[in-house]
């Protein structure tokens, strides 16, 4: 594979998600009648392999963040199965779950909102070590904290400072330091570079790339930015309205997109050079409501190739080759 020359690559799954569903109930009136559901994730399957970056793309409101959070039980799924390292993650309870939490970390879009403004960086990092690694002495904790700050390219002097004393890029580095301090195996990056300026975004992407290699990490990289996804991901999942419509290796998705929605997304990317000729097929209309998604294929309201069967049932999986599959009648 092109990414990270020399890094170990195997096809062993780390996190497997099977027919995962997450519905948020809508309650109305003083008796809290259950009047419907927001079907944020509506039956999806995906696998994150060891030492792999799996990207999730889609427009806002397609359920990509909910998919990420539900897959690691930050919100409990409505239905489905999750296997972490071959073990049924949904059956894990209390104390055992705490042990699992060490292996899975998450970094959010807005670093300033995810750091406590009244805690120093040392305070923010130490809390995690005290909770998950009570056996460490204060001296050990401090060493570990200095070490992770160096790993993310900050000086250990940062420990004494408060979040507002850092720029956005540095704050995001601190959030990444917090995510790697327990030596996790999987990190969910939910729009982790979207709020950063281009020059800073490039620095953080490089950092993520290096950390992945050094620490043997796997990432679930959630983003709406296709060029960032293309840059960092090995495989990509395209979501539309709570469903996965296409899964593919990064190269194949960009060179040979199969699903009309993927084709539309790719054609909407701005061109690289003013002289580049680009044919654009962006279909009219917007993403429908998740409360009453269209029956059959969710894309049928915008798809120019929609046929009668598309309105009746969700299309079957079509396999192009071992790492490229899509859900469409075409």
């Amino acid at each position: 594979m092109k990414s990270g020359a020399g890094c170990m690559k195997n096809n062993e799954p780390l996190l497997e998600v099977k027919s995962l569903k997450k519905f948020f109930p809508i309650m109305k009136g003083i008796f809290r009648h259950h009047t419907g559901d927001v079907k944020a994730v509506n039956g999806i399957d995906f696998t994150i392999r060891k030492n792999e970056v799996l990207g999730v793309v889609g427009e806002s409101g397609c359920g990509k963040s909910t998919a990420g959070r539900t897959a690691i039980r930050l919100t409990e799924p409505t239905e489905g199965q999750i296997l972490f390292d071959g073990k049924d993650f949904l059956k894990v309870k209390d104390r055992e779950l705490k042990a699992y939490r060490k292996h899975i970390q998450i970094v959010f879009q807005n670093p300033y909102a995810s750091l406590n403004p009244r805690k120093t960086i040392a305070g923010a990092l130490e809390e995690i070590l005290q909770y998950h690694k009570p056996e460490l002495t204060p001296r050990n904790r401090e060493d570990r904290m200095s070490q992770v700050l160096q790993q993310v390219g900050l000086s250990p002097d940062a420990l004494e400072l408060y979040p507002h004393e850092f720029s956005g890029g540095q704050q995001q580095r601190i959030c990444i330091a917090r995510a790697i301090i327990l030596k996790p195996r999987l990190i969910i990056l939910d729009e982790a570079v979207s709020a950063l300026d281009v020059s800073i975004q490039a620095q953080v992407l490089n950092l993520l790339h290096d950390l992945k290699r050094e620490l043997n990490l796997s990432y679930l990289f959630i983003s709406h930015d296709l060029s960032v996804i293309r840059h960092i991901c090995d495989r990509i999942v395209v979501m539309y309205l709570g469903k996965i419509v296409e899964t593919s290796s990064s190269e194949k998705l960009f060179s040979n997109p199969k699903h009309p929605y993927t084709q539309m997304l790719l054609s909407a990317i701005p061109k690289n050079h003013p002289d580049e000729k680009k044919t654009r097929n962006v279909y009219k209309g917007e993403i429908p409501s998740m409360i009453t998604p269209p029956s059959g294929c969710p894309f049928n309201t915008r798809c120019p190739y929609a046929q009668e069967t598309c309105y009746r049932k969700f299309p079957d999986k079509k396999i192009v080759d071992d790492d490229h599959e899509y859900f469409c009648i075409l």
Partner: protein
Amino acid sequence: MLLSVRNLVTKLVLGGKHIAVVDDISFDLKTGKTLALVGESGCGKSMTALSIMRILPQPPALQSEGEILYRGKNILTISEAKMRHIRGKSIAMIFQNPMTALNPVYTVGYQLLETVNLHLGLYGDEALERIRIALCEVGIPSPEERINEYPHQLSGGMTQRIMIAMALICEPDILIADEPTTALDVTIQAQILDLMRSLQERKGTAILLITHDMGVVAEIADDVVVMYAAKSVEKGSVRNIFNDMAHPYTRGLFNSRPNIAAVRGELAAIDGTVPPVTAFPTGCRFHTRCPNVMEKCAEAEAPKVSLGAGNHEVRCWLYEK
């Protein structure tokens, strides 16, 4: 020339000190053309737009210095009453976040009606018809119904279309668009850019586009001004910038962008971070992060150098003859 900005300086009073957040910016905007102001957050590109509209928050901002010539008249020195006839009518602006730019307690129709009453002097059915046409032009389906809806009932793409309709309803000469598509998805972004392009072709509106996205620049701009730390570091036609980018910062901006076509691996990021307005470095403000830094860069401000083709101009010691 439709709009000429000459040596514009806008200062803020911060902690008792006067700090220039727009420092000696000059550019020309031509009828039917698009000029893009490019730079990272905090480089003063939005402040430039607010200075042109004269809607800076005062205080902390001080009266802008320099000249902004709209059809030959300096709009920095005219009275507020006269400016009110220009603002919204001849020079209109759309903002990054349509949700915060629209008033949540009034219907979309009411907010459009205000503009029509004030600037076009139309009332009643005539005004409603004008609004209906404006909403159709920006591609809003069933405008009769949308008129009675509140901003929260519409999606992000729809509210941005409403903002554009509101800005264009008086057929302004100049449209200032401050990051108009940054908050939107790529598919909606493509639709909005197409819309701006087609409206420009039909009506000859000049667009001042503020963005940090080189892709958007490639899509729509004719001329480009690259800003860094309140100064313009390079300007020229879009082809000057994309084919013969000269300033190390401009090159850095291009290289740090993940590219769909290019091979993956390390991105050539610019080291360091954008300096805060209170602590701009001496000399060339980019010298602290510049890969080509020389001794004199820290000492004196870089000279403006004209490069061969067209109006291509760069402010850098590397090109001094």
